[in-house]
């Protein structure tokens, strides 16, 4: 199984939004609870469309909900180039 490089803050954000349940988030994002479980465990990288839908539920930008791998190291690599 390839390592999933897309991380997220969904679990933390749910609790900050009146302890929203996985099912409530799933209903608002138009997916099943299984997908939210997989996302929180880091077992699945969502499509761009789903990522935007989840960010919209929390009224945040995409970068505030999702991050790519070790973002600090990635930024260093970009700066080196």
């Amino acid at each position, binding site marked *: *199984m390839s390592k*999933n490089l897309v991380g997220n803050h969904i679990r933390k954000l749910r609790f900050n939004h009146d302890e929203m349940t996985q*099912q409530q988030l799933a209903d608002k994002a*138009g*997916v*099943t*609870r*299984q*997908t939210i*479980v*997989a996302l929180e*465990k*880091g*077992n*699945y990288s*969502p*499509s761009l469309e*789903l990522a935007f839908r989840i960010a919209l539920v929390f009224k945040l930008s995409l970068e505030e909900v999702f991050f790519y791998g070790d973002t600090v190291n990635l930024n260093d690599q970009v700066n080196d180039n």
Partner: protein
Amino acid sequence: MTYQEKKSIVSLFSAIFIFISFCLYMYPQLPEGASNTPETLRYWGFFVISLTVVSIIAHIVISIVFNILFNITTKEKVPTFEDELDKLIDLKANRISFIVFILGFIIAMGTLVLNQGLQLMFIILIISGFTSDVIGSISKLYYYRRGV
């Protein structure tokens, strides 16, 4: 455990149960004597067609019963649609299932090339169909639990 994971487990065990029950029901009806007689061929043809029909009906019934029991026991909402993760897992599991069946099909054709008789060919074909179904369910469960 989520609905999809439980459903994969139910699907796996129901496939095994249906296949074993059907084989136990059909085995006493196997014609005795030579394996290439028209009667034996008719038997295997009937076996394949009726196993397909029985499997489809049994899977539908078990799925309905499972949904009702899931709803009663967990009070959780049963998903009425497939989202992108379900579709992706379905595709991956179906691909594995298809590869297993094709391998079985090739082996079954190989028995004909080696003059092993039609009966063995049918048995391998039926077993490969069953194995592909089981491996498909196991793959789904694996992908739901470990991710894609």
